[in-house]
């Protein structure tokens, strides 16, 4: 590496191609390409869920097993082997309610993605705001923020989420009226956002701190450029990469957290399809009907894995030093 730098420094302008687009660079690395493909597939499935469901002729809420005899046993378990997998129900039936697993999975992607993307957006926005501002202002603001983040990071997040999400819910919904679905989503996004922004803010703060001392910022300030110009024109462009990486990494993290909450029973309620809740139901019956835990479990694994791989690929593409 070091030597490459030197070469660039020799006074003859080096003939090197302008760096190719991020997408191209991500795809250059095979795993990156595959990951991108899988992620894209999931996104596509999420978007086309209604269409696919229509073609497939099932919906995620109808209790097929209960309404049509011969599908579920008296105990509510699918009668057909492997969790009732058949030409009609590709991934089988849900024990008890007898809903169609395939469409549930399909719509489950939407739930996960909606919450994950929303949370990622909010936290990224908050993180950038806080991180850049604090990093640029420094001084007392910085100290206060440092302390604040220490406090917030000391909290056992999962416990808080467990304890708070019902509270918030009951705060927002008045008894007597049915709780709208968007409310559940809102609540989750809120609780995630409350803590999710800190890591990004911390790392940005560090970056901006070092950038702030860089000569080009100094010269901008010496030229009488205002804080706004410095932040927007000089600093932000230099943390773009960091943002992108964080955002890509944040999405799977939130998908996982959402699943955890639903698994523990404080996430998304019936009848909204949700992977975490499917897994927890699966864990109840997985001795009798392993398939019902297998599908959401593996789907979730693939989903998160793909996103993480993509995140790595993006980081490597943006930062060749990390790529090695």
């Amino acid at each position, binding site marked *: 590496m070091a030597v490459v730098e030197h070469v660039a420094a020799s006074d003859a302008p080096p003939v090197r191609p302008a760096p190719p687009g991020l997408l191209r660079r991500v795809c250059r690395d095979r795993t990156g390409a595959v990951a991108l493909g899988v992620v894209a597939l999931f996104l596509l499935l999420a978007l086309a869920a209604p269409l696919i469901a229509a073609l497939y002729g099932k919906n995620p809420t109808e209790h097929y097993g209960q309404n049509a005899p011969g599908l579920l046993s008296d105990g509510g378990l699918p009668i057909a082997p492997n969790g009732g997998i058949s030409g009609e129900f590709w991934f089988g039936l849900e024990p008890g309610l007898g809903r169609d697993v395939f469409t549930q999975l399909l719509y489950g992607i939407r739930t996960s993605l909606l919450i994950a993307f929303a949370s990622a957006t909010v936290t990224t926005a908050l993180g950038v705001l806080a991180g850049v501002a604090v990093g640029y202002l420094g001084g007392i603001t910085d100290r206060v923020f440092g302390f604040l983040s220490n406090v917030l990071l000391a909290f*056992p997040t*999962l416990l808080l989420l467990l304890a*708070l999400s019902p509270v918030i819910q009951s705060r927002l919904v008045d008894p007597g009226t049915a709780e709208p679905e968007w409310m559940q989503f809102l609540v989750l996004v809120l609780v995630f956002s409350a803590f999710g922004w800190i890591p990004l803010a911390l790392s940005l703060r560090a970056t901006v701190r070092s950038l702030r001392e860089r000569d080009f910022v100094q010269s901008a300030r010496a030229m009488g450029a205002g804080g706004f110009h410095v932040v927007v024109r000089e600093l932000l462009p230099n943390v773009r990469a960091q943002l992108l990486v964080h955002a890509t990494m944040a999405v799977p993290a939130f998908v996982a957290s959402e*699943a*955890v909450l639903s*698994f523990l029973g404080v996430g998304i309620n019936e009848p909204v399809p949700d992977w975490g809740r499917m897994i927890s139901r699966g864990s109840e019956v997985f001795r009798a009907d392993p398939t019902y835990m297998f599908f959401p479990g593996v789907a979730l694994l693939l989903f998160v894995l793909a996103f993480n791989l993509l995140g790595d690929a993006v980081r490597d593409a943006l930062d060749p030093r990390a790529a090695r």
Partner: protein
Amino acid sequence: MLSFALRRILQALAVLAAVSAAAFALFYAAPADPARAACGPRCDTGQVAAVRASMGLDQPLLTQYTDYLTGIVAGRDIQDVDGSTLHCDAPCLGYSYRLHQPVTEALVDHLPVTVSLAAGALAFLVVFGLGTGFVAALRHGTRTDRLLSGFTLIGASVQIYFLGYVAQWGLVYTTGLLPLPSYTPPATDPAAWAGGMLLPWIVLGFVNSAVFARLSRSQLLETMDEEYVRTARGKGLGRLRAHLKYTARGAAGPLVQLLGLEAGALLGGAVITETVFGLNGVGRFATEAVEGQDLPAVVGAVLLAACFVVLFVALADLVIAWLDPRIRLG
């Protein structure tokens, strides 16, 4: 070094104070009425009011908080719903009206499980994470590297409850390769203790080791480029020895930091793991407290967890300072 340590400890204390205040405000602001939860079945409003008084919930929040703090420092007398008062000695984290037991006692009852779980998991985490990280770094760019990185990434992506159930199913119930996950006090039967905790250790350790492994790999790779490592090799030191003596030392900082964080987090109670394996540790205690609207218990658990995090992060910083003369000797 001493001044550094003192400064660090003061900081930690400040953080703890803030955490306690925040937790207090957060939970006692909740709509759920702890008095109702604590009072018996047919409590009419009058009785609930009485209970609320005996719980001190009628006091202004600030007073409650100061009482709480004094309780932690000096212990305090607490009135149970039946009017009987009992002394809860320091560090008093309040009194659980659900269990009719001082929260501190209850936590102490559950702590051994969590500590065993955390300790084992951490041990696995360090050995496995550092091992894979080191090998991957030494062999970086090779197939081994990609294999290990992929493996750890799976660890980072898999859901611990999914893995936990599948592992239990595959290794315990169907094949019986491993003993049933359960906690036996190590004092009574070390073998049973280790056996019962083995699977939880592995699962928890593996899932948490992913981040650690990835960090150690990148850290080691970065430090390998340091000039002083090159110097060491220039001295005629073998590659491995140079890395063990110099690279590892140089990469230690962030790893220790992460380890501190992990340790704190795990000791605060691994809620999911304890649920999946039916271990009755602090995490389970906390979740049950949440379900039972047992506010004192919840706050107590939160504080304990926060304490562990703060403590171990501070500890990590001290270790780092001790490792790096530039900080130690200023």
